[in-house]
């Protein structure tokens, strides 16, 4: 799992590459630390480079959402991830930008 950050006046975008799953727990903590410095700003996760998210990975996104105390935008999810977001009704909790 790899994270890159783009920050500008409109907010912070986290571009992720690799699977966001059961094994990403440790690595995701650095994202949370980074987001802690950007409280109150628009947070976007760019998922174009993520082939798979499992329920653990989704749980991590929920933690991020809670930590940033605002809505989170999920950008460009691949089809199977979109399907998963729909199945878990997470599409109601996150702003999905296709």
């Amino acid at each position, binding site marked *: 799992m790899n994270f890159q950050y783009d920050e500008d006046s409109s907010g912070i975008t986290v571009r992720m590459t690799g*699977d966001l*799953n*059961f*094994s990403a*727990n*440790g690595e*995701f*903590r650095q994202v*949370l*630390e980074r987001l*802690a410095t950007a409280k109150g700003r628009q947070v976007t996760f760019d998922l174009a480079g993520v082939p*798979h998210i*499992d*329920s*653990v990975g*989704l*749980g*991590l996104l*929920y*933690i991020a*959402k*809670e*930590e940033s105390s605002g809505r989170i935008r999920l950008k460009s999810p691949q*089809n*199977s991830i979109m*399907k*998963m977001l729909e*199945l*878990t*009704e997470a599409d109601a*909790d996150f702003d999905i930008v296709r």
Partner: protein
Amino acid sequence: MLPARLRVLLVEDDTVSARIIMRTLERVPTPSFQVVHEGTLVEALSQLNTGGRFDVAILDLNLPDSLGIQTLAQLQVADPDLPIVVMTGDSDPAVAELALEVGAQDYLIKGETSERTITRCIRYAITRKHADLDRKAISDRLNDSLAAENKRLDEESALARAMQFGLLPTLEKMGQYRQARGLAVESFFEPSSDIGGDLWGCAEADALRTIFFMFDFSGHGVGAALNVFRLHALMSQLGGQIIDPAATLSRLNDMLVGLLPRGQYATVFLAVIDTAAATLTWSAGGAPPPVLFAADGSHKMLDTKGKPLGISLSAHYTNRVADFPGGSSLFLYSDAMTESVVGGGKMLGEERLVSMVKKLHTPAGTDIQGLIARFYDTVKTPLDDDLTAVSICHIATAAATQPVHTQSSAPLLLTSRRLEVVDVGLAPPYSGFIEIGADGVSDVGLACLDAAEQGGLCLSLSVAGAWACCAANLLATAVSRRFGGNRDWAAVEHCLSEAITNAMIHGGLGVDSSLRETPESLAEYARSIQEGLSDPARATKRVEVTVVPLPRGDLQITVYDRGEGYDFDAKMNRAAVPGAKHGRGLALIRKAAKSVTSRDGGRTLAMTI
């Protein structure tokens, strides 16, 4: 050039003869002679031993205190570098000849001692002795450097020998073959003249196929050994590509014909043993025919007809196949075993060797150490050729063969410790992958074998193994390739992923997901997982998955763990918590799958998709 002044030691007991010689020498203008006269050998030796330096000695062999050749010998011992002219009576030419043979430089016959004769004689003796000494010095130097050169050669050949032994398979590798491939290999190798032209070796073609080879270059010593390194390098280059022995021999032959000097060649035997298919496929070029023992102890000689490598570009090699089920073994040997000489000057021969090998055949292959001991008792030593003997036995252990099919129509399962080949086992022709764990494969669930029997796919891994190789991803890819069709692949992927993650984290490692609540507890959660993975008791528990196609086109995916289990119904019926950070896995499965059921107290989760 002789010095202008020469010191002469004259040893002569006859005063008349002595005086004649001294007078004669006094008359010579150049060189001038300074003569010291002694009448006995003792006095003469005393002159030499007290540091008297002389350019030449004139010696009467018959003195009051010494007679004949003895006199000459003693003077030579006293000063080995002193040129000596002996004086004899004309009655005894044989003594003069003998004196020359044992080291006098010239002789004078008493009564024929003219000025000219004596001078010529002395000159000649001195010149000849100096030439002898020069030659000796040169030859001493040569001997020294020859000894040094021999020492260097010995050292280099010891190094080469060590390097050649370094080419042989290590005991560690043999241990791995026994563990992971069910092949028990025992061997003996002894080069004849320090370094030899024999070599045997083995390599892994893939998880189930193992390559064995033996070759013997013409000749031995350094030249043959260099060829051994050459062929070994070529074979190492091919490595795992060696699946087809005949094609490989053709390639090696093409390369060697160009490389080897004329008249050098190698007899060769190359075999691929497939423990899953229980076959032995070989091709050969004139190697001694190996002995193949069936599990019941019966034996046959393998056909090894074929041109040795390196002789002809038009050589053609063929593959031959024999059954090699558990309990079979193969005995390879170099021609030194059959061509060594026994009593009566006859060679041991194939028949006698085979009868020897049969006596030392065991269910675990040929007892090589016992065979070599008996062989050395039988033949004349030292041998004049390299000696190689190898036994390869397909041992029918549970670890190596149990999950593999027992009949040819049964499905093929890949069993290995190596997680790099999990995807190989998940792809045809295999019907699944079984990780060989700490307990071998005795803890593999029967459901895995059943699934494979039903045309499905199975995967059995330790928790640590499943974690390390991302089992869910590998399976998702394998399932879509194998079963194809118009399915809800996202659902398959999610179900596999969620169920396997639950089985690993909750079932296997016993880590509770409620820790995944806050960033702080997330760290604790990650730590618990790492702890679990490094705890052998938990990390080696199996996680197993079977995927079986159902009649109506659905897939039945079942995931098994060896954990504590849980109350499946309670979890399934729990109301969804908005924004929950964990506990979503089952919900996701429930939505993605057509049906979900649990058995065995929550340790088995079956999903239809």
